[in-house]
């Protein structure tokens, strides 16, 4: 016997789809609760916390030096940026003047790290839209940067290199020459990526005009970094609030121009990162020859015990505006440490810009936002 299905019992229109935490393209352990109507997505709820390690609370029981390795583990694709931004905050609290050499080395490794992180972003975005080869090509070139970092501090992913007041090691022998060799190798590769992926018709069809993020939406959600710049503003802390010695270098801030579609679409977010690769190379080319001599440990305090007070520092990491708020009450451990993570804010815009699109487009938008779950969950 056939039963007549009562439509009021079953909601036949929509289906909840749990994407993640074990899913190939949620970039880690993100879970997306997607309400779908067929292929069309009507609502997305990102559920985070699968990688939560109590970073901020843990820091309250650690001395300032001990926190550095923990910051590395936040954004594990741009560890140098995390420890650099934390160190800047602590130095601001301690009011330390750094030697010129330290600042130069920090800029060099930061830009190398930015290249490495953007290579992952560019390649993984290709992977998200289904192209596998760009990912292996970008990882091949990122490998060279990891080799350089291995020479520098012995580690390939979590470096613990930038310390408050200085660096753990001085540059190794031949590091500058090796980096220049790498840049000579790397610069033509950017054109290769463009030929393989950026100008591919299918890639443009998949990413242009998809997930358009207007500037006002981006600002309302607190989106920063390349994702914000793709929406058409040149907000880059390296230019607007120069920290370290970025004001000495001549570089452009790429913004999204909507070359293939609308300003702020996925293609723009992707292409801004490709252009930033070139700008980072430009900064490195200026910084590498003019690196002064000096002792990288000279300004390093024997014991970090700041005065009572609080500090907030901003830093332009590969993903956006990293902020460290540190409150000190004169003890060797911070009373409170709060980290503003850019990927957290960037992820929050996902529902706004990708609902109404298809499931495939959610993956595209997520890939173009370039999130790192270690940083979102902390």
């Amino acid at each position, binding site marked *: 016997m056939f039963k007549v299905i009562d439509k009021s019992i079953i909601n036949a229109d929509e289906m909840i789809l749990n994407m993640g935490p074990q899913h190939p*393209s949620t970039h880690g352990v993100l879970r997306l609760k997607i309400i779908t109507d067929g292929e069309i997505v009507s609502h997305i709820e990102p559920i985070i916390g699968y990688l939560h390690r109590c970073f901020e609370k843990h820091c309250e029981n650690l001395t300032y030096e001990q926190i550095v390795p923990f910051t590395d583990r936040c954004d594990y694709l741009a560890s140098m940026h995390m420890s650099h931004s934390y160190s800047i905050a602590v130095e601001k609290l301690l009011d330390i003047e750094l030697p010129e050499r330290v600042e130069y080395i920090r800029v060099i490794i930061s830009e190398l790290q930015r290249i490495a992180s953007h290579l992952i972003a560019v390649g993984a975005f290709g992977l998200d839209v289904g192209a596998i080869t760009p990912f292996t090509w970008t990882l091949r070139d990122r490998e060279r940067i990891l080799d350089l970092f291995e020479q520098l501090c012995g580690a390939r992913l979590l470096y613990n290199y930038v310390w408050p007041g200085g660096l753990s090691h001085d540059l190794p022998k031949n590091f500058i020459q090796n980096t220049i060799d790498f840049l000579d190798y790397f610069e033509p590769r950017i054109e290769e990526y463009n030929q393989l992926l950026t100008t591919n018709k299918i*890639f443009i069809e998949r990413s242009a005009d998809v997930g358009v993020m207007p500037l006002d939406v981006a600002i309302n959600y607190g989106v920063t970094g390349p994702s914000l710049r793709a929406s058409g503003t040149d907000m880059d802390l390296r230019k607007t609030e120069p920290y370290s010695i970025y004001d000495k270098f001549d570089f452009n801030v790429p913004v999204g121009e909507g070359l293939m579609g609308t300003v702020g679409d996925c293609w723009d977010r992707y292409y801004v990162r490709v252009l930033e690769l070139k700008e980072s190379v430009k900064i490195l080319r200026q910084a590498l020859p003019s690196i002064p001599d000096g002792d990288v440990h000279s300004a390093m305090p024997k014991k970090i015990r700041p005065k009572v007070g609080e500090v907030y520092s901003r830093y332009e990491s590969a993903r956006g505006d990293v902020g460290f708020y540190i409150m000190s009450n004169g003890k060797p451990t911070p009373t409170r440490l709060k980290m503003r993570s850019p990927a957290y804010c960037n992820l929050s815009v996902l529902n706004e810009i990708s609902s109404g699109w298809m499931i495939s487009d959610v993956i595209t938008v997520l890939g173009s936002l370039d999130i790192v779950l270690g940083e979102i969950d902390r």
Partner: protein
Amino acid sequence: MISIVDSLMNYFSTINFDQSLLLVLAIVIPGVAIFLVMTLNVMLSVYFERKVAAFMQDRLGPMEVGIFGYKGGKKFWGGIGQIFADTIKLLTKEDIMPDDADKKLMFLSPFIIIIGAILTFAAVPFTKGLVVSDFNIGILYIIAMSSVGVIGVILAGWSSNNKWSLYGAMRSAAQIISYEIPIGLTLLLIVITVGSLQINDIVAWQENNRWFILHSPFAFIAFFIYFISVVAETNRTPFDIPEAESELVAGWMTEFSGFKWSIFFMSEYANMLIVSMVGSIVFLGGWLSPFKIIHLSFIPETWYLLDGFYWGIFWLMLKAIILVFVMMWFRWTFPRLRVDQLMYVCWKVFIPFSLANLFLITIWELIF
């Protein structure tokens, strides 16, 4: 000699034995032969694909597994032992079936898919005379049988009781059924030109005239429509949306493992070979030697023509492998299309173009 089944039956009729039993034997022997060809094909194709992928991605690919377990840090035969290692792994792997799955359908679906592939192979010749059965409706039969697999795909997606599988199956059904139409329409071109559906006639026509791809501009366009459509029909990148790795985990194959999954794999690669062979037979002269177009009067033709039974196998397989290589090349170069874009390409580009082609080639045939 017309076909394997015919020659077997001719041979059996000379034996004094129960003929109805021998008929079963005459059906089973080619079936086993096709299965062995498919197994060999999947083993070699996977190795080939891994090496092609590695070459395009600046890697080495499988290098470690030596053929006789010879390792010792030395690379031996480019890791060709990987073929056997993979086979053993897939056959001995645990076959996991989800608790809530529809177990009967889940058991059935891989076999429906592979039956579709085996049945298609029955009409695809390897060279002149080396075919299980040379139907008089060969092309029609191939088109019909190659779409049997979609039933298995839908069953697989539905029975695994997984939302990803369901999405994959629904996408796959829409895709395979849609792309059947441009494939059929382009193959109709040669049917119109030759006036026969039989594969032997089609190649004989190309032997007397020229390769069909060079026959007319419409045939040239038709070849590309055919090739892109079969890439879509075999679910290969850039049309691999039913098993879109980054979206649907593994699409309709998500819940399958071990032997069942290897059967899916086997039929996928078999389908690749089938469509490449059909493409080479219909458009690229099948088992004809490419040197046929050269006419040298001062050298005897037999010296350079390289024609005949065994050379026929060689030429057909070479043409098919080149097409398979191009499919692999696509896979490791292109991103994936979206569902609606895929449908757009089929319904708004390929089908109008194929229909126009069909119309124009009839005029072409009337004029010339």
